[in-house]
């Protein structure tokens, strides 16, 4: 088994003392980020990214990905103890987690949540370990048309799978592409949409957009929702943990189902949030006692947490092998790879073995260590949330401003952060999805160059996109996903007409 050998090599990279240290720092920072409102996986990683520019890329990605795992764990703490989802993907966890805490079973709920997160992540990492090299080998044959087809599939699946109105998803995505196009055109060197402003020459950096959209936007939305943090306290002792673990064994079906949903939604960029909702819904539908859901059923914590963590982890699979991130946080990590001078994509597995397998090994370690860390430190994190919001909010804004500034040492970026923050608030209120915007901003240049290269290859013939079975089927699948919402709208229109005819109108 080649993969096992590579993985063992990866462990030898990840298990050095400095890397384990970075792992711990990353996990603790990640949980903190997950617990605090306004700081999440995506913008937390974006703010810390500039600090890693001078680090060794392997250590840097280990630390940053551990921040991501930590944030995934941390989201569960606030949703169970405070009924405040620290992250969008933990909204579904509040449905049953908070009622459990109200019944005084917070420790059980937290243990169940952390364990489920761990199981979800573990299986997703196993999937990455064995699927990623295969997919990478396969993708080595890809040319520009194939890459464009995969990118097309990514974006179409947003429109097809998103819960938000499809036209708004499309608009948010195209807004991202438009922002990505600002600045110098990489092929011809012409300036686009700069209108004579020197600040616009560099274009819009997605890190600034992420900090503004998710950080400032989130703070503004939190202001609106009122700031009373009334939480339950929790201490976890070892007896409760063992007891809960024993209880969790009977939910093996839920685990398997949620892992599958999570991995699927992570690899196709549905992301962790829809995965958690979908998994919660499926668990409820499959359960015998549907009534108990929403009133404190452990299964209602297990299902969304497993799926969210599996999706969050699986999102790194397409990022590493194809250079296409499955979630906004994965997009930020991808941006990091580019800055450290690593080209994500299939060649990464050939040229940067240490890096890739070190990262994969650190995923195993990070999740094991993460589980232990959160189980032992829950009371402290809960205490942090008792700091009044008027203290936390301006400090978080200050941190966001520092993060925005350090990306390019540019004050203009701090102003842009504010602009993106206002957009984030408005978009969230009006149900424009933010994830496709960020992904389009990150992938814009790549998608454009693969499209233009394909067009060059074919001398402008669109037929290159169905010239062989691979491109053809990817494109067909994209168009199918693109038309999915239209089909749904048509069906509901027909049904309405039928109902009207039946009523004799």
């Amino acid at each position: 088994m080649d993969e096992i050998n590579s993985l063992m090599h990866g462990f030898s990279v990840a298990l050095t003392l400095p890397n384990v240290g970075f792992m711990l720092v990353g996990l603790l920072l990640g949980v903190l980020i997950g617990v605090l409102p306004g700081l999440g996986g995506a913008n937390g990683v974006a703010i810390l990214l500039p600090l890693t520019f001078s680090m060794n890329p392997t250590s840097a990605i280990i630390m940053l990905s551990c921040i991501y795992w930590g944030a995934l764990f941390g989201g569960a703490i606030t949703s169970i103890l405070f009924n405040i989802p620290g992250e969008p993907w933990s909204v579904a966890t509040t449905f049953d987690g908070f009622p459990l805490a109200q019944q005084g079973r917070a420790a059980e709920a937290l243990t169940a949540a952390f364990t489920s997160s761990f199981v979800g992540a573990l299986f997703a990492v196993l999937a990455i370990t064995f699927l990623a090299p295969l997919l990478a080998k396969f993708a080595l044959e890809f040319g520009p048309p194939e890459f464009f087809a995969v990118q097309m599939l990514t974006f179409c699946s947003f429109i097809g799978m998103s819960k938000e109105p499809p036209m708004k998803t499309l608009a948010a995505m195209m807004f991202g592409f438009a922002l990505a196009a600002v600045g110098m055109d990489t092929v011809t060197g012409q300036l686009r949409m700069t209108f004579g402003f020197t600040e616009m020459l560099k274009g819009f950096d997605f890190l600034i957009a992420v900090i503004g959209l998710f950080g400032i936007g989130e703070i503004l939305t939190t202001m609106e929702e009122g700031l009373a943090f009334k939480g339950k306290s929790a201490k976890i002792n070892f007896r409760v943990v063992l007891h809960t673990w024993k209880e969790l064994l009977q939910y093996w079906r839920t685990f398997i189902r949620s892992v599958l949903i999570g991995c699927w939604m992570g690899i196709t960029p549905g992301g962790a949030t829809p995965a958690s909702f979908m998994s919660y819904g499926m668990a409820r539908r499959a359960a015998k006692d549907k009534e108990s859901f929403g009133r404190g059923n452990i299964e209602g914590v297990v299902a969304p947490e497993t799926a969210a963590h599996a999706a969050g982890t699986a999102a790194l699979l397409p990022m590493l092998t194809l250079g296409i991130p499955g979630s906004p946080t994965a997009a930020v990590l991808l941006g990091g790879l580019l800055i450290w001078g690593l080209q994500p994509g299939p060649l990464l597995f050939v040229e940067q073995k240490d890096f890739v397998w070190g990262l994969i090994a650190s995923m195993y370690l990070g999740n094991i260590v993460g589980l232990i860390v959160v189980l032992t430190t829950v009371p402290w994190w809960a205490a942090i949330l008792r700091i009044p919001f008027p203290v936390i909010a301006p400090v978080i804004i200050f941190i966001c401003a520092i993060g925005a500034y350090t990306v390019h040492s540019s004050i203009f970026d701090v102003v842009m952060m504010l602009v993106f923050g206002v957009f984030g608030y408005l978009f969230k209120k009006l149900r424009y999805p933010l994830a496709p915007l960020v992904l389009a901003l990150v992938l814009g240049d790549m998608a454009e160059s693969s499209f233009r290269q394909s067009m060059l290859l074919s001398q402008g013939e669109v037929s290159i996109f169905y010239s062989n079975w691979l491109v053809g089927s990817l494109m067909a699948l994209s168009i199918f996903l693109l038309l999915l919402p239209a089909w749904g709208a048509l069906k509901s229109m027909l049904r309405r007409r039928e109902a009207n005819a039946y009523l004799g109108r």
Partner: protein
Amino acid sequence: MSTESETPGPALRRRGPEAGVALLLLVIGLIVIVDSLRVGIEWADDGPRAGYFPFFIGCLLSLSSGWTLVRALLSWREETAIFSEYSQLRDVAAMAIPLTVFVAAVPFLGLYVPGALLIGYFMRRHGTGGWLATLAVAIGTPIVFFLIFERWFLVPLAKGPLEAWLGF
């Protein structure tokens, strides 16, 4: 938030911001189209020109936001969905206004001093802590960040006259 003045009542209706944002995106889409036409959307000797790809993007952005705008305008009268209550908007403004002042001050004063002022203002205005706690957090936080960034990671942040006077 320019639509705050219309429809007196406890809540701001959704249709105003909905149409406003859609219109803004439509205008951005049109700008993209115009600029793509300027740099050229056709082929040159060496391949597609710079406006080739953004032109499509501009078209799709204009179409999708135009759709949202038209729908918002068509259902203008019967639409009753709520964007936010005015009291909630006041809470948002309580954050947004000091935030804007903070960002506006950064070019002149650097990051540290406006940061301290923002934290101090917010704790005094909305918090319950005393002067001592406020001063400690407001001045302590920037100092901690100064140490982390400038000392440990050697990443210089924007500085203003105060830092210059202190000799940094």
